[in-house]
C-alpha cells in the first residue's frame, strides 16, 4: 500500500477501535442522562470498577468470561446505588448531582487505590487475541480488531433493542417526553433502573476492554470521564445514533490528531466539542430544550 494510504488506514482502524471503546462506555451515560436528566459523574468509576473486577477475575477465569461476569456484577451493584441513593436526587439541581457523583467517584478511586495500588494493571490475553490478524491487504492488531467486532455486535444488539422491541420504544418515548410517557402508563422508574443497570454494565465492559489499550489505574475514573461527557454532550442525550456518531467523530479525530500532530493532537477533541456545541448546543441528535 502507498505510505499515506497506509497511515490513513491505520488511523481509521485505531480510531475505530477507540471509538468503539468510547461508545460502549458512553451509551449508558447518554441514555440515562437523556431519560432522567441525572448528571452522573460516577459513570467513569463504574467503568473503572469493571476494569478492576476483570483484573481480579482473570486470575481464575479467561478474559471473555471475566468481562461478562464483571459487567453483570457492576450492573447488579449499580441497581443498589440507583435505588438507594440516586433516586433521592432526581429533582435536585445539576450542581448537587455533579457534587454527589464526583464525591462517589473520589470514594471509588480511593477504594481502588487501597485494594489494587496506584500502579497501572494489565490483563493476560488469550493467545488468539495476541499479535496480529492478517486481512489480506495488511495486518491489524488482533485485540483492536476484537474490540471493533465486539463494538459492532453491541451496536447491532442495542439498535435492535432500541428500535424493534417494546422496551426500546418505551425508552424512546420516555426520553422524548417523560410526563407524557408516564401518563400513558409507562413505568418510567422501572425503565430507568433497567437502563441504568444496563448502562453501568456496559461501562464496566468498556472499562475491562480498555485495559489492554490504556492500562488501568485508579485515575481512570476521572481521566476518561471528560471524554465520556464529551461524547454524550456532542452526540445528544438519550440518542443511540448520536452517541455512536460522536464516538466515531471524536475517536477518529483524536487518533488522527495524535498520529499527525503528536503534541498538538489532544487539542482536536476539545476544539471539535466547542465547535459542535456552539452550533448545536444539544449535540448532534439531542432535543433542544
Amino acid at each position, binding site marked *: 500500500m502507498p505510505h499515506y494510504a497506509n497511515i490513513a488506514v491505520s488511523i481509521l482502524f485505531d480510531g475505530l477501535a477507540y471509538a468503539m471503546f468510547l461508545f460502549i462506555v458512553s451509551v449508558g451515560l447518554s441514555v440515562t442522562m437523556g431519560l432522567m436528566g441525572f448528571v452522573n459523574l460516577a459513570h467513569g468509576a463504574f467503568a473503572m470498577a469493571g476494569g478492576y473486577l476483570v483484573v481480579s477475575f482473570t486470575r481464575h477465569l479467561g478474559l471473555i468470561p471475566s468481562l461478562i461476569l464483571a459487567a453483570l456484577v457492576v450492573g447488579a451493584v449499580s441497581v443498589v446505588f440507583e435505588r438507594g441513593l440516586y433516586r433521592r436526587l432526581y429533582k435536585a439541581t*445539576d450542581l448537587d448531582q455533579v457534587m454527589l457523583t*464526583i*464525591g462517589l467517584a473520589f470514594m471509588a478511586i480511593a477504594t481502588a*487505590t487501597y485494594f489494587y495500588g496506584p500502579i497501572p494493571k494489565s490483563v493476560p490475553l488469550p493467545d488468539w487475541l495476541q499479535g496480529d490478524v492478517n486481512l489480506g491487504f495488511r495486518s491489524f492488531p488482533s485485540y483492536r480488531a476484537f474490540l471493533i467486532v465486539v463494538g459492532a455486535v453491541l451496536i447491532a444488539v442495542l439498535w435492535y433493542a432500541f428500535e424493534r422491541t417494546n422496551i426500546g420504544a418505551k425508552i424512546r418515548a420516555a426520553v422524548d417526553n417523560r410526563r407524557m410517557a408516564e401518563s400513558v402508563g409507562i413505568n418510567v422508574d422501572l425503565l430507568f433502573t433497567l437502563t441504568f443497570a444496563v448502562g453501568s454494565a456496559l461501562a464496566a465492559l468498556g472499562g475491562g476492554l480498555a485495559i489492554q489499550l490504556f492500562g488501568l489505574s485508579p485515575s481512570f475514573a476521572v481521566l476518561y470521564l471528560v471524554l465520556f461527557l464529551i461524547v454524550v454532550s456532542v452526540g445528544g442525550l438519550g440518542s443511540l445514533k448520536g452517541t455512536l456518531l460522536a464516538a466515531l467523530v471524536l475517536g477518529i479525530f483524536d487518533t488522527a490528531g495524535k498520529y499527525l500532530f503528536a503534541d498538538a493532537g489532544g487539542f482536536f477533541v476539545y476544539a471539535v466539542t466547542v465547535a459542535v456545541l456552539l452550533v448545536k448546543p444539544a449535540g448532534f441528535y439531542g432535543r433542544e430544550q
Partner: protein
Amino acid sequence: MQPERAAARERAAQYLIRRHSYHWGEALPWLIAIACFFIFPDRMTFGSQVLIAVMFALSLDLILGYAGIVTLGHAAFFGIGAYTVGLGAAKFGWHEPISGLFAAAMASAFIGFVSGWFLLRYRGLTLLMLTLATAIMLQETGNLRSDLSGGYDGLPGLEFKPLFGVFDYDLYGHTNFLYVLVTLAVVFYVARRIVYSPFGQALTGIRENVRRMHAIGSPVHRRLVTVYTIAAGIAGIAGALFTQTNAYVTLTVFDFDNSAKVMIMLILGGTGRLYGAFIGAAVYMIMEDYFSKMSPTFWQFGIGLMLVLAVLFAHRGLLGVITDAARRFQRSRKP
C-alpha cells in the same frame, strides 16, 4: 405622608439597611487570620496559600453562588493570572508585583469577558462542557508553546521586586502573608459591595427566577457577562498572587483538578454567602495539608465522603451549619 405609611417606609428602609450593614461576626475571619500570623509564624507560606484559595473560591461564589451559573473551567482564569505574572517576570523583565496584579486582573478579565459573551448563552451540560473544553484548550495551548510556558515543568525561580520598593520578602513568607491578606481584604470589600448592590440583587433575581427577570426587562446576558468578567478578574488576581508567593508557576494551574477543588471548597463552605468561601477554603486546605500527608488515599476517600454527606444533609455547607446552630442557640436563650 400618613403615619402608618411613614412607619412602613421606615421599617422597609431599616430591613434593607440591616441586610448589608456590617455584622460583628464578619470581623472574625480577619481576626483569626491576623491571630494565625502571630500564633503560627512558621506556617505563613501555607497561610498565604490558604488566603489565595479563599480569594479563588470567592471569585467562584460570585458566579456560582450569586448568579447560579455552574461551570467547570474556572481554573482557566486562575491560570491566566498566574501566567501573566509568570511570563512577565520570566520573559519580559516585569518584576514589580502590584502592577503585575493589575495586569493579571486585566488579562483574565478580558478572557472572561470574551468567553463569557459567547458561552453564557448556554446552560446545563452544554455550558459545563464548553467551559471545561475551553480551559483544557488553554492548557494545551500552553503546552504547545512550552518554550514560553515552561510546560508542565513550569517557570521556576521567578523574582519579584519588594512591595512598594520598601518591604522586602523574608524567608518565612511573613511579608507575603500580609501582602496577600491586604489584597484579599481589598478584593473582598469590592465583592461585598457588588453583592449588596442593585446589580447583585439582580443577580439573585436571575438565579431565583430567570423567566421573571426577562419579563421585567432585565438584560440577563449582559448581567451575567459582567459578573463573569469580574469573577474572572478576581480569579486572575488569585493566580497572580500564587505565582508571586511561590516564585514558580507550571501549567498544572489550569488543571481540571483545580476547577473541581475550588467548587468543592465552596460547596463545603456554603455558596452564595461570601463567607462560605472563607470557611470552605480554609477547612479544605488545612485538612488536605494534614490528611494527604498521612495518606493521600484516605484523604481522597474522606473528601468524597464529605461531598456526598454535604449534598445529602448539609445543603448550605459549613456556614449553613454554623449559622443554623447560632440561630438555635439564640432562640434557646430567649426567655
